């Protein structure tokens, strides 16, 4: 039993930490996010050169062959820097779907480009009505000769504005909320009939609604099996959930340190407010919330590494705790910063907003708790 990173993993973690340290101070981050793409393309090239974009991919496709622990190491540091470059959307989601599929042609065609940084991808799974139900898919795909014709709208697509290629979940059979009958299609972002409306989320990322009107997709552009896309979605969402929680972990640590430091400098009633016992105990609660979140993250990563059969339960538990403890830490960080916590120029509010978006992604704490309940208590 050990909770240590391998030497290789430590080096990886350090390289991300160093990048954030040297290239990603808060003002730079602000301008990166302000870029029309939603991130800084030069940074993306740096990621490619540093080999980060290859982490989760098999060696066979030029990947680093990394596992959950490697991804955690990277994401935790990216969280501390509030990195806006779409590592999750392009590498973990888009790339994850491809590498989990058994479609060699599609892998050959794209994974290399992801790794060298020349391809931006996105996964379009949300619909206006779907809320957090991954299987709630109204977008229709009808066979027409060797093609499929897609109609419908996907919303809040992460990296949807910058993506060259998009994997879209669409219904080829079954009812609106059936897990069976969902198929994944790889489409060009500028294919005829694709119309994008892009907008920003509070955490700075640029997303898009993607309207599909009679979009033709060749059958060989199906990722995974026809009607059987849900299996892939579920597997990738599990991986990405752990990754996002690792990012949140880094953010919580950052907020805790920042808050402690601030209370030591902020004077009220003639003393540093860090000397007020009531605030001390609340910062202890923040600390405990962070430590507990780290523990359950480690638990989920260990379960993923060993392919434990209660992995799904562990991931639901992780997402619940990241959501709840993240809220506690975020609320307290702003409150203890007082008026300063309300300003846009301070980074605290931005970390909190990112935590909030992570909580929402793939289902908030309440949603995940009901999932946990089903897994744990359903007779």
């Amino acid at each position, binding site marked *: 039993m050990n909770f240590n990173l391998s030497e290789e993993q430590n080096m990886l973690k350090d390289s991300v930490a160093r990048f954030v340290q040297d290239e990603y101070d808060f003002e730079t981050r602000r301008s990166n996010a302000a870029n029309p793409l939603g991130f800084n393309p030069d940074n993306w090239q740096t990621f490619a050169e540093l080999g980060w974009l290859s982490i989760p991919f098999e060696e066979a496709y030029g990947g680093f062959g990394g596992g959950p622990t490697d991804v955690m190491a990277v994401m935790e540091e990216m969280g501390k820097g509030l990195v806006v470059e779409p590592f999750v959307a392009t590498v973990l989601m888009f790339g994850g779907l491809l590498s989990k599929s058994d479609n060699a042609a599609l892998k050959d065609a794209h994974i290399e480009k992801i790794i060298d940084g020349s391809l931006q991808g996105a996964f379009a799974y*949300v619909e*206006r*009505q779907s*809320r*957090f*139900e991954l299987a*709630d898919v109204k977008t229709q795909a009808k066979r027409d000769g060797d093609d499929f014709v897609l109609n419908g*709208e996907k*919303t*809040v697509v992460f990296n949807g504005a910058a993506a060259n290629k998009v994997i879209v979940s669409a219904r080829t059979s079954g009812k609106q*909320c059936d897990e069976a009958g969902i198929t994944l299609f790889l489409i060009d972002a500028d294919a005829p009939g694709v119309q994008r*409306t892009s*907008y*920003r*989320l*509070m*955490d700075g990322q640029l997303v898009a*609604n993607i309207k599909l009107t009679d979009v033709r997709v060749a059958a060989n552009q199906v990722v995974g099996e026809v009607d059987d896309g849900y299996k892939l979605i579920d597997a990738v969402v599990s991986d990405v959930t752990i990754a996002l929680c690792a990012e949140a972990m880094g953010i919580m640590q950052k907020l805790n340190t920042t808050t402690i430091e601030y209370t030591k400098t902020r*004077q*009220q*009633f*003639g003393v540093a407010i860090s000397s*007020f016992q*009531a*605030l001390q105990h609340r910062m202890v609660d923040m600390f405990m919330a962070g430590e507990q979140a780290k523990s359950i993250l480690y638990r989920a990563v260990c379960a993923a590494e060993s392919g434990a059969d209660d992995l799904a339960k562990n991931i639901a538990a992780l997402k619940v705790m990241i959501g709840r403890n993240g*809220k506690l830490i975020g*609320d307290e960080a*702003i*409150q203890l910063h*007082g*008026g300063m*916590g*309300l*300003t*846009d*120029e301070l980074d605290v*509010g931005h970390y*909190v*907003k990112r935590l*909030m*978006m992570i909580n*929402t*992604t793939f289902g*908030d704490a*309440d*949603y995940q*708790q*009901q999932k946990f309940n089903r897994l744990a208590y359903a007779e």
Partner: protein
Amino acid sequence: MDITFSAEESAFRDQVREFLAENWTEDLARRIRGEDEEFKAAQIEWQNKLNDKGWLAPGWPVEHGGVAWSVTENFIFETERSLAGAPDVVPFGLKMVAPVIYGFGNDEQKKRFLPRILKSQDWWCQGYSEPGAGSDLAALKTKAELDGDDYIVNGAKVWTTYAQYADWIFCLVRTDSSGKRQDGISFLLIDMKSPGITVNKISSIDDHHSLNEVVFDNVRVPVANRIGEQDKGWTYAKALLAHERTSIAAVADSKRRLRDLRKLLSEEISGGRPLLDDVQFQNRLSNTEIELMALEYTELRVLASTADGKGPGVESSLLKIKGTEIQQAIQQMYMDLAGYYSGVLHGDETAESIGHAFGHDARKAYMYGRAATIYGGSNEVQKNITAKYVLGL
């Protein structure tokens, strides 16, 4: 123990409903949700309608144009007003500086300022907090030095809401640094057009411009604009703080927000069922609704016990703490209901083009709402006050 309305009170309620039906129009509601000048104009238009009816200034002395409502009448008006979705008045003039002026100002000052406040001809803002003096108000450093018939004011105020619209600011300034921190503070009324005043926008986490920094660089303020005695400003300001805390509780507004939330929950479908059927969300709703049902009576108890008009004392801390906790719980539920859309910033798009009606507003309300537990004396300070003055700890 009796809460039933008398015939007169029921009649008054009907009157209020009638007034709102006639005057709180769709169009006005739309414009008041707007930005900057559109908002300001609409807000003033609304306040003038209330003033024409004689309902703008409950609590003010009648001779100055106020209306003498009973606790129950006030409760009825506030309830109906907010259930109709109509906004409260901007408090800085009507609820904050006016009581100080008619309470401690001289006749000259009453004649000069009160009528213009009633007619919303002057937009006021509040100059209390400073970079180094937040909840610890008495630590303020903005200085006013006597020079002939003027004070020369130097320093800075922060978190000044709506300073960008303001014609006047009422300030606590230090006129004497010897002695206790609460002493040596004076209460000045300052014309925002005075040379030497700069207003700096503070961008805040709600991506909306309401907060400002107001910098004073050798600003001349006539001694005639000082309320009461020099160095006694703290005692005048203190009387206000309880008022402020009570109004921050905003019980009636939370009732409306909960009612509207309930409707949205019944329309949002998750996994084929309306979210309102979700036991977990029902429990979050009822946790808040039950606290609010109690707080409504706590407020009534406080008001009833202070019906002499003196206004609430330390009990107002409880109202402020609970009221703001409830507001934030409601804001959180709007966010969780919005799901992915809770992150939406409209930018060049609109609710229609993005396809979600309230996500953008829910985020704004949530982010702006973080301030409620911080301003007006942070909730931590309210607890200190309660521990000391109510529990005797």
